[in-house]
């Protein structure tokens, strides 16, 4: 029961999840903006996002502005819950240490 969620517990995905968690529940962020905020390469970001999407933690919406395709990312309800559980688990670990 003390296991940390392996989907979130990896530096890259943890940073992405933490960043997405700062958005309001009805907000989403364009892929390039998140890439810039996190200073990650596009390849690195999309690899991690795919894992998060496969786990149902991140919602990926492809849309268009004019002719330019834009991808918007947001945490799903499940993803937000998983992130909260994850940080709670971390705190309980730390609280449990002498």
């Amino acid at each position, binding site marked *: 029961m003390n296991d940390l969620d392996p989907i979130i517990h990896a*530096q890259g995905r943890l940073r992405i999840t933490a960043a997405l968690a700062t958005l309001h529940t*009805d907000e989403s962020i364009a892929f390039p903006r998140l890439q810039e905020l996190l200073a990650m390469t596009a390849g690195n970001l999309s690899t991690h996002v795919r894992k998060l999407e496969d786990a149902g933690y991140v919602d990926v919406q492809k849309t268009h502005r004019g002719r330019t395709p834009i991808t918007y990312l947001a945490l799903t309800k499940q993803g937000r819950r998983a992130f909260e559980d994850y940080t709670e688990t971390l705190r309980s670990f730390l609280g449990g240490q002498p």
Partner: protein
Amino acid sequence: MTPHTPASDPDDDLDPAAALDLVDRQQEEIERRMVAGLPLILGSWGVAWGVGFTMLWLIDGLAPGFRMPLPIAVVTFIVLMAGALAVSGIVGARMGRGIRGGAAAAWTGTVFGLAWPIGFIALLALGNALIVNGMPPELANIYYPTASVMLVGFMYILAGGIWQNWQSIAMGGWILLVACVAPFFGYPTHYLVFAIAGGGVFLVGTVFTAVWIRSGHGGAALWTSR
């Protein structure tokens, strides 16, 4: 208790303390980067108020030794205010780029945005009505800037309420106080009060936000609210 850390990922060497620290630092970093343009916006208003109102004060403030020509003072004032408005629009849009808000946030933003011009039109209408009813020009010189500054203070308080930011409420409260006090100094000294106490609070805000954005830790708890 030794936490079990699954080793399923190559970059997964985080112990709980490091992971929690990473979460905190990352979220703080995002919040700082999101408002990176704020010092520029506040700074442009600080300059517009500071220099703009000083120009209006100089029309009669140092008379008879020096008189700033009225057209120069008024045009400078208008250009500076329009410039700060443009900076706010451009930098504000840049800060919000790539963020898609929900319908509720869009509604709030639109209503709050439209309340500005509506408020200014209403206070201009009241001023004209007062002039029609015999308000002398000397009083109009007091009324228009004071009513405008009052509206700004009020809107900053509202903004702080909507977006839960106590710094905005404090700034708005201070600006409202300045609007209440300045008229007692009379024409033209009230312009100088707006320049120093009004422009000053924007410059304080500029320094405060700039320091927080540049510093890694410390000021974050002061500025973030959610």
